[in-house]
């Protein structure tokens, strides 16, 4: 198991560390840790989840902004956006590669043998539509008579919620099964469509849909941690593109919004020492590949 796989596994287990629910404990964790947003996409209604989903938290705050203001609550989402901004300004989109349970799940799904397809590049822009529309604008602007909005992304799109919370909760709580309606079946169909897409394409949800990835991606060029590319050493062999879990052409843009800084290209792909990284101006130590190349 590679070091990154170990970290992904550890992060998934730590994010979902409440395992008392099948043994007579509460149906989900309700301790103080639940107020802390986790860095990856992980449904907070998963019975084992010990933290809050940042996308769900942000939508809930925006959906309740108007009635909240009327009663004097100043909840603008600063806490959630701030946490994501802190991570983003330090490492950009790195959490997607290292600590996101749903990203990890997609990488495992892609290991299932099947014909593999490339995802059309323009679909990468869709995640910004999901972020702007489903996470920010619709929860904020489409409100009921009391001023409350809905959490559009969680309710109508998020396959992580159906997989990590919907199916386990329906299995654990029979009384919820009576409430299942058309929406659940629509979301279940969506989940199966995503599962099939994950087998065929590399990380399709991260690249085309994930609002969390969209937020982190905005920091890729400005973060303290940045990838670097040496044009003189690069022979344009394309090995980094072949190995990249996000299909990024590194030589075109080393800090592409879709680069999740998994470091596979740096550690494994490039035999010519053309790929490296720097942390706020301090270059990385040379890899074995770089040393061999120099």
């Amino acid at each position, binding site marked *: 198991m590679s070091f990154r796989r170990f970290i992904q596994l550890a992060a998934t287990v730590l994010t979902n560390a409440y395992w008392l629910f099948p043994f007579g404990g509460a*149906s*989900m964790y309700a301790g*103080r840790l*639940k*107020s802390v*947003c986790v860095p990856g996409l992980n*449904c*907070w*209604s998963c019975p084992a989840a010990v*933290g*809050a*989903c940042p996308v*769900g*938290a942000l939508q*809930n*705050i925006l959906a*309740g902004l108007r009635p909240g203001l009327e009663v004097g*609550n*100043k*909840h603008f*989402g*600063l*806490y*959630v*956006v*701030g*946490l994501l*901004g*802190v991570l983003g*300004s*330090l490492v950009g989109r790195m959490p997607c590669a290292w600590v996101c349970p749903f990203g990890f799940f997609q990488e495992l799904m892609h290991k299932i043998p099947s014909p593999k397809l490339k995802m059309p590049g323009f679909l990468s822009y869709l995640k910004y539509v999901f972020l702007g529309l489903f996470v920010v604008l619709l929860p904020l602007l489409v409100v009921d008579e009391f001023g409350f909005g809905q*959490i559009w992304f*969680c*309710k109508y799109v*998020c396959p992580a*919620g*159906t997989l990590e*919370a*919907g199916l386990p*909760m*329906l299995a654990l*709580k029979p009384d*919820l099964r009576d*409430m*299942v309606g058309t*929406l*659940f079946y*629509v*979301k279940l169909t969506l989940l199966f469509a995503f599962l099939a897409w994950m087998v065929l394409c590399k990380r399709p949800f991260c690249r085309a849909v994930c609002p969390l990835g969209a937020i982190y991606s905005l920091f890729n060029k*400005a*973060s*303290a941690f940045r990838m670097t590319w040496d044009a003189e050493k690069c022979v344009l062999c394309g090995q980094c593109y072949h190995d990249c879990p996000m299909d990024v052409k590194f030589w075109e843009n080393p800090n592409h919004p879709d680069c999740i800084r998994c470091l596979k290209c740096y550690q494994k792909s490039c035999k010519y020492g053309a790929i*490296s990284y720097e942390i*706020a*101006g301090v*270059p*990385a*130590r*040379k890899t074995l590949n770089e*040393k061999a190349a120099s």
Partner: protein
Amino acid sequence: MPVRTKKLPTRKLPFVLLLFFVAAVVLGINFGELGAVFEKAVTICLDCIGIG
């Protein structure tokens, strides 16, 4: 022994951003957002499940 390559000019932008977002977190906590997140996180989200 690992070798360090030439040092690049230090970038200030990440630290400016970091300070800005740390301030946002502190302000958000001060406004009670931690409690608001907690309140939602400890109840089963029917919308997330798909039956809301």
